[in-house]
């Protein structure tokens, strides 16, 4: 049997238009069966041993694709998965054309605040599918025709743990507070409402309560406890 993985050549994909280069991967724009498509390519890390690098890229690509598929099957708005080649670290998926929620909130705030309600709803749907996004920020939410799409499941995992779910909420809040400081309270109010509406009061309040505990642990927030007066 000839595996498609064996004949696929990464060089061909590196010619596609580069949209974004992160630490994990390159995002390129190409097409797939005559529609625009995103090529997410996990490139080789030269500082890692080959066996380790191959293993990590394989596992992470496989896991991300699997989570994308689960999310889509759970009616969460995510890019459709077109194809995945774990051995070369490539995922091909739907291209969602639109602005990020971050840019919208920065451009004309009041009008787009209600979108945060749907950001809450989507995250609740993600959590109901026992997926933890692990990078749930307004820059990973794309708005197309007033509908929110969640992208970048690169760090995502499966988990039923309340703590893990609470971290997603905490990260969203932290991102909102740093990027949209002046309207962060309104954004979070909408977000909690959407989250609770979707996941239910009982479960939802437990998770939100835990998120507040995480914040108070001071793991990410520099609490003022200096020992001297400056």
């Amino acid at each position: 049997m000839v595996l498609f993985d064996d004949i696929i050549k990464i060089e061909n994909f590196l010619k596609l238009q580069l949209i974004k280069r992160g630490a994990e991967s390159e995002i390129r724009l190409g097409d797939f069966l005559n529609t625009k498509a995103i090529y997410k390519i996990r490139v080789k890390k030269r500082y890692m041993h080959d066996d380790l690098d191959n293993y990590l890229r394989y596992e992470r690509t496989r896991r991300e694709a699997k989570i994308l598929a689960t999310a889509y099957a759970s009616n969460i708005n995510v890019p459709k998965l077109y194809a995945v080649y774990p051995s070369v670290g490539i995922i091909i998926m739907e291209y969602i054309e639109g602005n990020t929620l971050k840019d919208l909130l920065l451009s004309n705030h009041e009008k787009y605040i209600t979108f945060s309600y749907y950001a809450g709803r989507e995250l609740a749907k993600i959590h109901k599918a026992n997926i933890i996004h692990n990078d749930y920020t307004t820059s990973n939410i794309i708005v197309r025709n007033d509908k929110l799409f969640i992208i970048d499941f690169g760090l995502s995992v499966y988990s039923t743990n309340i703590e893990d779910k609470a971290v997603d909420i905490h990260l969203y809040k932290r991102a909102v507070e740093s990027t949209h400081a002046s309207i962060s309270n309104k954004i979070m109010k909408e977000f909690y409402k959407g989250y609770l509406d979707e996941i239910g009061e009982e479960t939802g309040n437990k998770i939100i309560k835990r998120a507040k505990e995480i914040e108070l642990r001071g793991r990410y927030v520099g609490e003022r406890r200096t020992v001297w007066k400056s």
Partner: protein
Amino acid sequence: MITLGIESTAHTFGVGVFDENKGIIGDSRKNYIPKKGGILPREVASFFSDVAAEAIKEALEQAKISINNIDGIGVALGPGMGPQLRVGASVARALAAKYNKPLIPVNHAIAHLEIARYLTNMKDPVILYVSGGNSIVTTYVDGRYRIFGETLDIALGNLLDTFAREVKLGPPYIVNGDHVVDICAEKGNFIKGFPYVVKGQDVSYSGLLTFAIRLKEKGYNIKDICFTVREIAFSSIAEVTERCVAHTNKKQVILTGGVAANKLLNEKLTKMAENQNASYKPVPFKYAGDNGVMIALTALLELKHNITIEPENAFINQRWRLDEVEIPWYYSMI
């Protein structure tokens, strides 16, 4: 302006003298080397009490100045081990009170960052700080160093030392400048199936340690185990550092702390920085480990911003996180 700095957070009692114009002018270090096992805080503290006076004298002699010409006494009040910290703090409080000098509270971790920034001449870098007690990826944002990622359990240096001890490669842990795990790993091969734990921006090493010790018990080749432990530990911290560089878009990367002299870690970070179009430098070997000079340097920077403390309020803080410290001097380094 000239400051004297006292370091006593772990196994080194260090006294440094730093001159604003001449740079480093005095550097005395008394290292506690355990005959077996690891550090016993009580024993180290008693060792520190014995050598403190001599270290101060030595540093001042090297600097060729009298204590009367010093403008301030800096002391590392944390983070570190209580008994040792108390020795340094007592000595510093006594000196400040007797000679009527301002006492300056210094965070040990911040001192590691500042000495590296000073000696590499990198103004605004992403910093990887790895030692026996810390593994932290940090960078300055908006008034403070922010912790971007860190170890969730044991530190990188602790992992290497504990593993070496468990499989009887050490102590001593360092032979001719190389760690015994590095020496052992030289002709090793990669073993598949080790746990590689990067959770978001954080790393975790305790599972790796347990797994490695189990493999040794099962009779695997120790060279291969050393090779793999090292490969996984360094790759994961390099990966977290890379995420910080990509996220902040900073163009400089530096390495500091006791593990900074490690050749393989340096190789990995060099390649990682190239990949991100950033320049990379490690802190010079001599100032990688704990020393009094870095405390003196940081104290000087603080003193210029009038950060001092009354001796009666100078309590130690074993868990003093580096992101609690305001850094008003960041852009006006010497």
